[in-house]
């Protein structure tokens, strides 16, 4: 009797949890706040600043989404998640979405029952070495000691790369970026490997940055992007198209500064549809007409967000590379707004 009551309660709560995740968009609207699973601290991508306000490339997506859905870019609660807790936090409904440098992989998409709705940063694993080592390609790293974080996909990529090139290496495992940097500077390892964006940020803060080079090889594909729960396609669409609005805005030259001007003067029908001047795209996914306009106005278009947080003008100094628009040789491509 007791047992059946207990099981019944569990089933009921599971059912209720199911209902809740069936309508994240409604939940967010009812709550009046977007709960965004973010990083505990990653340079340029997402971290609280000295005043406790979250800033970064990933954070800007959360802001744009909050602006689109709730009309206020500040109505976001950032829940810091670690590498271990992030997917469970999303699956259990503690956060509405994850924008947290998570690589889109087959097993995460299928096995963990998550949906990667877009790719906001195409990253890849690279190597940094001391110039004095005289190495110009990762394939010359035979016999090198390499600093690498444990328990990450980078560790597996590294093993694959060296195996396929028939060369050997000695791993020096470290717990996090700062320890890796320390070991690398102390000479405990010849090379340091992690995502190229992380390498660039690390190199930028080295005391003698000019003496270190990042090797040209990128040995893995790391498409990073916002993640939502499986089975809530409406919410997934909202996140996806909010992101694409930012990309399309860059393509169409809509910026945070000129958005009002463009809205007043544009003759481009697609721009009109994005900004809600024509058609009713917002209503198709449960938002109002001006969602796109607000999303772009929150922190600017994709290019502006990139430039402000991690671009070449910042100390991190990442080039657009793969993340340029498709018109400029990159991979960022927004489907038509129609």
């Amino acid at each position, binding site marked *: 009797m007791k047992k059946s009551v207990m099981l019944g309660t569990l089933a009921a*709560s599971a059912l209720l949890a199911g209902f809740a995740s069936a309508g994240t968009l409604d939940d967010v609207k009812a709550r009046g706040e977007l709960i965004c699973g973010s990083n*505990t601290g990653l340079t340029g991508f997402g971290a609280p600043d000295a005043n406790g306000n979250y800033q970064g490339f990933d954070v800007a997506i959360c802001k744009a989404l909050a602006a689109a859905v709730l009309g206020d870019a500040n109505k976001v609660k*950032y829940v810091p998640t670690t590498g271990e807790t992030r997917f469970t936090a999303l699956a259990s*409904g503690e956060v509405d979405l994850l924008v947290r440098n998570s690589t889109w992989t087959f097993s995460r998409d299928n096995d963990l029952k998550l949906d990667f709705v877009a790719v906001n940063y195409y990253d890849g694993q690279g190597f940094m070495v001391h110039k004095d080592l005289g190495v110009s390609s990762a394939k010359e790293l035979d016999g090198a000691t390499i600093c690498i974080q444990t328990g990450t996909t980078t560790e597996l990529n590294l093993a694959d790369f060296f195996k396929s090139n028939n060369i050997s290496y000695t791993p020096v495992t470290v717990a996090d970026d700062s320890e890796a940097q320390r070991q690398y500077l102390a000479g405990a390892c010849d090379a340091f490997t992690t995502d190229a964006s992380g390498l660039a940020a690390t190199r930028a803060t080295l005391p003698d940055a000019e003496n270190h080079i990042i090797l040209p090889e990128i040995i893995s594909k790391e498409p990073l992007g916002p993640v939502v729960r499986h089975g809530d396609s409406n919410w997934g669409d909202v996140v996806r198209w909010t992101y694409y609005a930012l990309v399309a805005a860059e393509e169409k030259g809509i910026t945070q500064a000129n958005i009002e001007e463009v809205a007043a003067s544009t003759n481009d029908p697609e721009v009109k549809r994005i900004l809600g001047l024509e058609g009713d795209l917002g209503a198709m996914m449960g938002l109002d007409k001006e969602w796109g306009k607000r999303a772009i106005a929150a922190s600017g278009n994709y290019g502006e967000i990139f430039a402000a947080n991690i671009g070449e003008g910042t100390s*991190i100094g990442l080039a657009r590379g793969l993340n340029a628009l498709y018109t400029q040789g990159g991979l960022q491509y927004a489907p038509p707004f129609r």
Partner: protein
Amino acid sequence: MPTKAAFVRKDMLAPQEPPVSERGAIKWARENLFSGPLNTFLTIVGVLAVFLIVKSALPWLLNGVWNANSMAECREIVAARHGEGATGACWAMVRERWHQYLFGFYPQELFWRPTMAFGLMFVALAPVLYFGNRTINMRMTAVAGVLTILALAGVSASFPQTIAGSEAGGLALLAAVIVFAGLTAVAWMAPRRLLILTLLYPAIGFYLLWGGSIWGPVGALAGFAILAVVYNLTKAQLGVVVATGAGVVVAAIWWLVVQSHVTGALHSILPLGTAHVDSDEFGGFLLAFVIGVTAIAASLPMGILLALGRRSDMPLIKALSVGFIEFIRGVPLITMLFTASLLLQYFLPPRSNFDLILRVIILVTFFSAAYIAEVIRGGLAALPRGQYEAADALGLDYWQAQRLIVMPQALKISIPGIVSSFIGLFKDTTLVALVGLHDPLQGVTKVVRAAIEWKGIYWEPYIFVGLIFFACCFSMSRYSMYLERKLKRDHR
């Protein structure tokens, strides 16, 4: 025939100084450092090790830079002052970010609230730690008051945009002066009266830290009042245990069902309150203290009950206690934290916003209570059987015997174990970083390192946080030694 001696010494020779090798520093060194080949060797190795450590660390510490805006600037300043290649600590990071280490992301204009709560905590602790000792109580209250007021002044001076200069800042300071002056007077006149503050402190501390409507904490306190009333009314008829149970049940009904309606109504009639602060804005040592102090305070009584339950003759109580203790002790703390942060969420109804910090506090308390229970059980086992029999012979009932005879002795024996459990618990609060909370050691440090200015800083945050932890843990350990000395009644 008396012989005539040429010289007869009449007085004693003054004692000569011992030979050089048998006195002073040389003797001490010979005896303690170079008493044999092995010790000589170890001494030399030890001195060398100390020398090497000091040689590498001292310049780094002495070259420390306090005024800079980034690591790069620190390096430039060190290079300019001490030449190329010199290394130096970058304490400027601490200067820039100390408030995040202490308060996390607590709103800056409200920093006075945790500061005040921290100061009041010591006043509330004074009568518990030094019961009835007027001088120490008064001194502790006064010192806590002066330090809190200085800290308040310091905090408002560091954030001039927030409260300093404004009327609120002045009022807060004035209020703090009055509160602490009053408390010092109470400590002087009637030190035991301070216990009232101790009993109220959980509500006061909660209200200061989280804010919101004043009726929430008042309602929670009312629950305890209801518990006490029910207990007193039914004790005579039902006995201690059942009366307590009845009290808890009635109080639980109040807390879970009635309270929110009553406090809601009261709030709509008389909306008293201050700005609400969300738990996710807590971080740094504020978080460590909130978790540590709450868990310490709650786990001691819980541990005592569990220890008694484990030694109980009643099979159900014994089984429950043993099951609880062994289950919790058999699971690593990290597992408990993951359960708190992830698993519980699956079982709670959706949109029930059960605060993560609260979940963590509850599970950390359980964890600590299981260990405390075993420590106290050790103390209970160490009591000679005669003590229990003497209590029975005096005609004391179970609770009287425990309260008057058994527990005072058992707790005294367990003091070192209890305090080391507490010290361990306090340090374990840093593990909450694993569930994404901003603990001072890893959480805040990670945030600081994520800023491009401080990326790559390594030792400084650890040294800073380590020093504060050391100060806290060392004081706890000294207090336990004081308590052992004070309670020493035998001449072993």
